[in-house]
C-alpha cells in the first residue's frame, strides 16, 4: 500500500478519472494490456493493476480518501521543501528511486501491487524504450521504427495522465539515443537488408521531423546528460512533484472560495471539476455540500450551467449524467426564469440521451421529459411575465431577474419543437416495440400523458396569442386521435379517467416518495413551483367534437402543410365514422389529390391511408364503384404494404439499398394505427369482382378496356391452375366466388365470400353482408343476361325473380336500366311481363367494322384538332355543318332522343330501338368531344348556347362527382423509393 500512501494527490486525481465510465482514458487503459504485452516487463500484472485500481475507487475509496487527506498534508509539506529547491531535489528523488525498486521487487515476487495509472504508463514507456535499445543492438530498424511510433503514441497518453505538457525526460532521452544511433548508422553505412534500409530511411526522416518539436529539451539533454542520465523514474517523479504542486495550489485556493464545509474542505476543492468526474456518489456529496442555500448564488449556477451545456457532444460526457447534473441544477436555480432556462436544457439533454435516429428514447426518460414539460408550463403559468421565444437574443443576465421582476423576461426556447420531438419519440417507441408484447400496450397507455402536455402547451400558446404554433400543436393532437373510431376513443377517455383516479393515490405516493428522496439527497428546490397546470387530459364526449374543435383552430391559423395534413386526418376520421359523403366532399373540395405528389412522404402515406379508409367506407355504404375507384390504384402496383407504410415488402426485381430500407423503416406506422390489409384486399377484390364479372360477360367480342387490370390478371392466374383446391386466403375466396358468379350461381358466390374471417372486423357486419348479398344477386342477374340473352327469345320476369331470389320490382329496375343503357337489346312485354329479346347481335365482322368506324372518326377528329391547333383557326365549312347537326339533335323534337344521345356510347350508336336518329345523335356525341378540345382556340365561335353548354357540361362533370372519385387516387408514384 505504499504507493498509495505516498502519492496521495496522484491517486486521487487518477481515481477521479477512472470513475468516469466513458472516459477515453479508461479506454486507453483497457487498450494498454495489448501494448504492454510486447514489452518484457509487467506483462502479467497489468490486468491486475487495472482491475485493482478500479476496485480501489469504487470499494474503499472512503478510507482511501481519508488516508489521502492525511498524506496530502505531508506530501504538500515535502513538496514545499523539495519542489522548489533544486539542491534538495536529488535527495528526494533518491527516495523515490528506492521506492521504485521496492515496487519492482514486489511485483517480481508476485505480490499484488496496487499502482496508479501514471505508474503504469511510465512503466510502459520504459519498456518501450528498452525495446528500442534492444533493437539498436541488433541494428533492426524495422522493429525500431515500430517501437518509435509506439513511443510517440504512448507519449500522448502519458501526457494526459500526468496532466501536464511537460514531456517526460525518458522520452527525450530516448530521442537523443536514437539520434545518436542514427548518425552512427549513417556514418558506418553498414549493409542492410532492403526492408531494413527502407525502415532506416523512413526513420531518419521521421526523427528529423519529430525532433524539431523537442529541440530545446534535446539540447538541454545533450548539455546536461547527467540530469537525464538517471533512471527513468526520475522523470516521472519530477512530474509528479509538479503535479502535486498544482493540486495543492488548487486545494489552497478552493476552500477560500467555498469555505462553507469545514469538515470536508478537501472535497469542496473539487467544486470545479466535480462536474466532469461525477459519479453518483460524488454528486451526492456535492449536494450535501450545497446544503446551505444562501451560499449559492445565481452566478455559480449560471456558470455551472454554461459549463455543462458546453460539454455537450464532447467525448466522455455521459448523456445520462448530463441530464442528472442539469436536473440537480434545476433544484438549486435561483430564479424562476433561471429554473426555466435550465429546464429547457434538461429537456434537450433528455432528447440527447438516445443519439441514433433509428432507436428511441428510453421510456422512463420520456416520462421524465413529460414531467419536465409540465413543470415548464407550470412556471410559465405562474409567472406570466416570462416569455419563451427564439427570436429575441436574451440578455446575459436575463434570467437573473427574480420572480418579483415586473417586466417581461425572455428565455430562449421552443415549446413546440419540444412537443413535436416528444411526439415523434413516442411514435418511434411504438414503431420499435413488438406489437404483440405487453410493452406495447403499456406504452400505448402513455398516450394520455402526451395529450395532457399537448393540450396544456396549446392552451398556453393560445393564451399568449401564438396561434400559429398552437395550430401546429393541435395538429399533433389530431394525429393522435384521427384514426380512433368512437369505441377506441371512448376507451382512451376511460383510461385517462382511470389513471387519474388510481393515479391520484399512486401519484401522490410517488410524489411523496419522490419528495422524500429529494430531501434526502439534496436541498429542497429554491424555487418551488406549485402544480398549476392540470395533470389530466380533458376529452370531449366524442372524437368528432374533439376533431372539430382542433380543426377549426388549424384551418384558421395553420400553415399549408399543417392544414393539408389536418384535412387528411379529418377526412380519415369521417371515413371511419361511416360518413362517406362528407369525407368525399371534403376530399374533392380541398383539391388535395392534385397536390399530393408535391407533399412530403409522410403526408403521402397519410393520403394513401385516407384513400384506403375512404374505400372501405364506400364499400360499407354499398357504393361499389366508388370503393373500387378509391382502392384500385393502391392495388395496381402490388405494393400496398409499402404505400400504407405497414410493413416492408420484398420485391423481386428491385433491390433496395440499406439506406432506403432504413428510411422506409422509419416511416412505418405503429401497429395500432394499421388498416387491416386483409379486409382492404377483400374489399378491393370484391368490388373488382362485382364490376368486372358482368363487364367480361358483356364484352365477349370487343375487348373493352378492363375496369380492373389487377383483377383480370389474378383471374387469369387462377384459371391457369390445373387443380383448384379449397380457398385458403382472401384472394382464393374471391376467385372461387368469381367462378361461381361467372356461371350465375349467386348462392355459392355469396357463401364463399361470407365465409371469410375478416367480416367480423366490421362494426355492422350483418348490414354489410346483406348489402353484399344483394349486390351479388344483382350482378349475377346481369351476368346471366349478358351471357345467355342470345339463347332466348323471351324470358319471364317470374322466372328471373325465382332464379335470383330478388323482388319483382328489383329485377324490373335492373333489367330496365340495362335496356336504357343499351347493354341489353330487349324490351318488356308489359301484359305478359316478360322480356322479349331483339336479335340485333352483330356478327364478328360487323362488330369489327364498328370498331373500325369508331377509330376512324377518332382519327379524323384528331387530325382536325391538330389542324386547328396549328393554324389557330377553324376548318372552314365544317363547323357550321357541325353546329347545325348539334342543334338538330337537340331540337329533334322526338322525345326519345335526348336522353339516349347523352347516355349512349359515343360514336357508335348500335341501338336497335330508334334507328332513325341513331346516326345523328351518334355524331352529336362525337362533336361534343370535339367541341371541348377546340373550345379554347375558337373564341369567337361560341354563338350557339347549346354547344357551349355541352362543352361545359363535360368539363364540369369531370371535375365533380363520380369521375372525380375515379380520378382521385392519383397519388403515390412518389412514395416509391
Amino acid at each position, binding site marked *: 500500500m505504499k504507493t498509495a500512501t505516498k502519492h496521495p494527490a496522484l491517486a486521487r486525481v487518477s481515481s477521479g478519472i477512472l470513475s468516469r465510465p466513458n472516459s477515453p482514458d479508461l479506454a486507453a487503459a483497457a487498450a494498454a494490456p495489448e501494448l504492454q504485452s510486447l514489452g518484457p516487463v509487467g506483462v502479467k500484472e497489468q490486468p491486475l493493476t487495472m482491475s485493482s485500481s478500479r476496485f480501489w475507487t469504487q470499494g474503499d475509496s472512503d478510507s482511501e480518501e481519508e488516508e489521502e487527506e492525511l498524506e496530502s498534508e505531508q506530501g504538500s509539506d515535502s513538496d514545499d521543501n523539495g519542489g522548489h529547491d533544486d539542491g534538495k531535489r536529488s535527495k528526494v528523488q533518491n527516495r523515490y528511486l528506492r521506492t521504485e525498486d521496492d515496487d519492482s521487487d514486489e511485483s517480481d515476487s508476485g505480490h499484488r501491487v496496487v499502482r496508479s495509472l501514471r505508474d503504469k504508463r511510465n512503466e510502459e514507456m520504459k519498456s518501450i524504450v528498452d525495446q528500442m535499445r534492444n533493437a539498436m543492438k541488433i541494428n533492426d530498424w524495422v522493429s525500431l521504427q515500430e517501437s518509435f511510433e509506439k513511443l510517440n503514441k504512448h507519449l500522448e497518453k502519458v501526457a494526459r495522465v500526468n496532466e501536464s505538457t511537460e514531456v517526460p525526460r525518458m522520452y527525450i532521452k530516448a530521442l537523443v539515443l536514437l539520434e545518436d544511433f542514427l548518425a552512427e548508422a549513417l556514418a558506418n553505412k553498414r549493409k542492410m537488408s532492403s526492408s531494413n534500409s527502407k525502415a532506416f530511411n523512413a526513420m531518419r526522416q521521421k526523427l528529423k521531423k519529430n525532433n524539431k518539436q523537442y529541440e530545446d529539451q534535446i539540447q538541454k539533454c545533450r548539455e546536461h546528460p547527467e540530469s537525464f542520465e538517471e533512471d527513468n523514474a526520475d522523470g516521472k517523479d519530477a512530474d509528479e512533484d509538479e503535479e502535486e504542486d498544482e493540486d495543492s495550489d488548487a486545494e489552497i485556493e478552493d476552500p477560500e472560495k467555498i469555505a462553507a464545509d469545514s469538515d470536508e474542505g478537501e472535497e469542496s476543492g473539487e467544486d470545479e471539476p466535480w462536474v466532469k468526474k461525477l459519479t453518483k456518489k460524488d454528486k451526492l456529496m456535492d449536494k450535501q455540500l450545497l446544503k446551505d442555500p444562501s451560499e449559492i448564488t445565481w452566478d455559480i449556477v449560471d456558470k455551472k450551467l454554461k459549463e455543462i451545456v458546453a460539454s455537450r457532444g464532447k467525448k466522455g460526457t455521459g448523456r445520462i449524467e448530463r441530464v442528472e447534473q442539469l436536473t440537480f441544477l434545476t433544484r438549486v436555480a435561483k430564479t424562476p426564469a433561471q429554473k426555466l432556462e435550465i429546464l429547457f436544457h434538461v429537456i434537450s439533454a433528455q432528447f440527447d440521451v438516445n443519439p441514433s435516429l433509428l432507436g428511441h428514447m428510453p421510456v422512463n426518460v420520456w416520462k421524465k421529459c413529460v414531467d419536465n414539460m409540465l413543470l415548464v408550463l407550470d412556471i410559465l403559468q405562474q409567472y406570466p411575465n416570462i416569455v419563451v421565444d427564439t427570436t429575441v437574443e436574451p440578455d446575459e443576465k436575463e434570467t437573473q431577474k427574480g420572480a418579483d421582476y415586473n417586466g417581461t423576461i425572455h428565455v430562449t426556447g421552443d415549446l413546440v419543437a419540444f412537443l413535436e420531438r416528444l411526439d415523434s419519440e413516442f411514435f418511434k417507441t411504438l414503431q420499435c416495440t413488438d406489437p404483440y408484447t405487453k410493452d406495447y400496450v403499456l406504452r400505448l397507455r402513455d398516450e394520455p400523458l402526451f395529450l395532457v402536455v399537448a393540450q396544456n402547451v396549446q392552451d398556453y400558446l393560445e393564451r399568449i396569442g401564438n396561434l400559429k404554433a398552437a395550430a401546429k400543436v393541435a395538429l399533433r393532437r389530431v394525429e393522435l386521435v384521427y384514426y380512433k373510431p368512437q369505441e377506441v376513443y371512448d376507451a382512451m377517455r376511460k383510461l385517462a379517467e382511470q389513471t387519474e383516479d388510481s393515479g391520484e393515490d399512486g401519484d401522490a405516493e410517488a410524489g411523496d416518495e419522490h419528495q422524500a428522496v429529494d430531501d434526502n439527497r439534496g436541498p429542497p428546490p429554491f424555487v418551488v413551483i406549485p402544480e398549476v397546470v392540470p395533470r389530466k387530459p380533458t376529452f370531449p364526449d366524442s372524437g368528432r367534437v374533439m376533431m372539430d374543435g382542433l380543426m377549426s383552430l388549424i384551418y384558421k391559423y395553420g400553415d399549408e402543410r399543417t392544414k393539408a395534413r389536418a384535412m387528411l386526418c379529418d377526412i380519415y376520421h369521417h371515413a371511419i365514422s361511416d360518413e362517406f359523403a362528407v369525407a368525399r366532399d371534403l376530399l374533392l373540395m380541398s383539391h388535395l389529390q392534385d397536390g399530393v405528389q408535391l407533399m412530403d412522404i409522410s403526408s403521402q402515406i397519410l393520403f394513401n391511408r385516407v384513400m384506403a379508409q375512404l374505400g372501405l367506407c364506400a364499400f360499407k355504404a354499398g357504393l361499389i364503384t366508388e370503393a373500387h375507384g378509391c382502392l384500385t390504384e393502391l392495388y395496381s402496383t402490388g405494393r400496398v404494404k409499402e404505400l400504407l407504410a405497414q410493413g416492408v415488402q420484398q420485391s423481386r426485381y428491385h433491390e433496395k439499398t440499406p439506406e432506403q430500407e432504413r428510411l422506409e423503416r422509419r416511416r412505418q406506422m405503429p401497429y395500432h394505427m394499421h388498416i387491416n390489409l386483409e379486409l382492404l384486399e377483400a374489399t378491393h377484390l370484391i368490388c373488382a369482382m362485382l364490376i368486372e364479372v358482368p363487364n367480361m360477360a358483356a364484352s365477349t367480342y370487343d375487348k373493352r378496356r378492363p375496369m380492373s387490370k389487377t383483377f383480370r390478371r389474378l383471374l387469369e392466374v387462377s384459371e391457369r391452375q390445373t387443380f383448384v383446391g379449397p380457398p385458403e386466403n382472401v384472394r382464393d375466396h374471391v376467385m372461387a366466388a368469381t367462378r361461381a358468379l361467372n356461371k350465375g350461381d349467386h348462392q355459392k358466390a355469396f357463401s364463399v365470400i361470407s365465409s371469410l374471417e375478416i367480416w367480423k372486423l366490421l362494426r355492422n357486419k350483418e348490414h354489410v353482408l346483406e348489402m353484399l348479398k344483394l349486390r351479388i344477386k344483382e350482378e349475377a342477374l346481369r351476368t346471366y343476361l349478358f351471357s345467355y340473352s342470345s339463347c332466348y327469345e323471351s324470358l319471364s320476369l317470374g322466372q328471373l325473380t325465382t332464379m335470383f331470389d330478388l323482388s319483382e320490382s328489383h329485377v324490373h329496375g335492373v333489367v330496365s336500366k340495362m335496356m336504357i343503357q343499351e347493354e341489353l337489346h330487349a324490351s318488356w312485354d308489359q301484359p305478359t311481363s316478360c322480356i322479349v329479346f331483339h336479335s340485333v347481335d352483330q356478327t364478328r365482322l360487323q362488330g369489327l367494322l364498328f370498331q373500325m368506324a369508331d377509330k376512324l372518326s377518332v382519327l*379524323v377528329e384528331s387530325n382536325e384538332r391538330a389542324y386547328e391547333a396549328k393554324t389557330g383557326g377553324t*376548318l372552314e365549312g365544317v363547323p357550321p355543318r357541325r353546329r347545325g347537326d348539334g342543334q338538330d339533335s337537340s331540337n329533334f323534337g322526338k322525345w326519345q332522343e335526348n336522353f339516349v344521345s347523352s347516355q349512349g356510347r359515343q360514336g357508335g350508336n348500335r341501338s336497335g330501338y330508334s334507328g332513325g336518329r341513331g346516326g345523328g345523335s351518334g355524331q352529336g356525341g362525337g362533336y361534343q368531344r370535339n367541341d371541348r378540345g377546340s373550345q379554347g382556340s375558337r373564341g369567337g365561335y361560341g354563338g350557339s348556347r347549346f354547344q357551349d353548354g355541352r362543352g361545359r357540361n363535360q368539363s364540369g362533370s369531370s371535375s365533380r362527382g363520380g369521375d372525380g372519385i375515379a380520378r382521385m387516387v392519383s397519388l403515390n408514384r412518389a412514395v416509391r423509393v
Partner: protein
Amino acid sequence: MAEYDLTALMAAQLDRHLVFPLLEFLQEQQLYPDGEILEAKIRLLNGTNMVDYAMDIHKSLHGTEDVPADMVARRSEVLARLKSLDAAAAPIVAFLQNPQLVQELRPDKQYNIHMLQERFQIGPDQIEALYQYAKFQFECGNYSGAADYLYQYRALCTNSERSVSALWGKLAAEILMQNWDVALEELNRLKEIIDSKNFSSPLNQLQNRIWLMHWALFIFFNHENGRNGIIDLFFQDRYLNAIQTNAPHLLRYLATAVVVNKRRRNMLKELIKVIQQEQHSYKDPITEFLECLYVNYDFDGAQQKLLQCEQVILNDPFLGKRIQEGNFITVPLRDEFLENARLFIFETYCRIHRCIDISMLAGKLNMNYDETESWIMNLVKSSKLDARIDSVSGTLIMTTTPVNVHEQIIENLKGLNMRTDMLAKNIVEPAQAAQQAAR
C-alpha cells in the same frame, strides 16, 4: 307538408324585406298557425323602419289596441332620423328632382362630381347622405323612392364597395316593386360584378353567389324568360358548385325548371348527376322523383313521388304562384310540371317496352282510360311516338325497326370522307398559294 318547406333555409340568404312575400305566402297556405307567422313578421319588422306596419300586426295578433312602448319609442326615433337624413340629403335631392339639371349630368363621373361641387356645392358628404337617405327609404318600405335614389347614387358615387351595395339595394327594391325586367337587368349587372370582382376570400364570393341565386328566384319564377334564365345561371360551373357546397336546397328549383322546360331536356343528365351526389345532403319529392325515374327506373316509386311533388309545388312560394283567370285559380307551374313529368314517365316507359296495357298506363299516368287513349293518339299523330294502338286488346304496341347494320356503318363513315377531304383541301390550298406566290 311543412317538412318540405324551405322558408327557414331561404330566409337566411335573403334580405329582410324579401322575406315578407314568403311569409305572406305561408300565411295564405295555412301551413303554420297564424300566430306564429305574425310573430315572425313582427320580429322581422323590428329590424326595419316599418314601425306602423309592425304596430298593425301587433294589434291584429293580440287583438288589442295597445301598442308596446318600445314600438312607440322606435317610431319617434325613426321619424327623427328621417328628418335629419332628409335635411342632409336635401340639396342633392333637390338637384335630382330638377329634370333639366339632371340632363346636364354626363357619363363622365369625374366631370359630374366636379360640376356638382362647382355649381351646387354638392360634395362627397351630400352624396353619402343620398346613400343613407335611400337606405332609410328602403327600410321604411318606400321601395320606388329608394330605387330611384340608389340609381342616382350609383351614377355619382366613386366608392366601388358602396356601389355594389347600392346595386344590391336597387335589386331588392326592384324585386319588391315587381319590376321584373329592370330587376333582371340589375341581376345581370350584379352577377358580372360578382364574377369579375376580386374578393378578399373565395368564401366571400361564394356567399355572394348564393345570395344572388336566392334573390334571383323571385325574378326567374315571375319573369317570362325566367325559366331559361334559371337554368343558364344555375348550371354555370361556379354557381353549380356554390349550390353543391352551401345551398343544395336550390336543387328543387333547378329540377323544377329543367322538368318544365322542354327545350332544356339535355340538362337532365347533369342535373341527375348532381342530385345523386347531393342526395345525402338534400332530398325532396321533386329530386326523388327524378332519381326514381332515371336512376332506379322504379316507375311505381316515381308515381308516388309525383303525387307528393304536387303538394310541394303548391306549398312553395316560388313554384306555387297562383294566377286568377276569371273564376278559376290556377297554378300554372304545377300543371306544366305534372304534364311534363307524366311525359317523362311515359317516354321512359315506352322506351323499354314493346307492348303496354293502356289501362295500366292510365293508372300510371293518373288519367282515365279514354283520356289516356286520346293522349296517346295525339302523340302518335304528331309523330312523337312510333306506335300503334291495339284497340281490341287495349294495348299499345311499339313499332321497333331494328336498324340495318350496314346502313349504320355507312352512316357512321359517311361524314368522315367529307371531313378528311376538307382537311386536305385546307392544308393543300395555302401551300399551293404559297408556291405560286413564290414563283
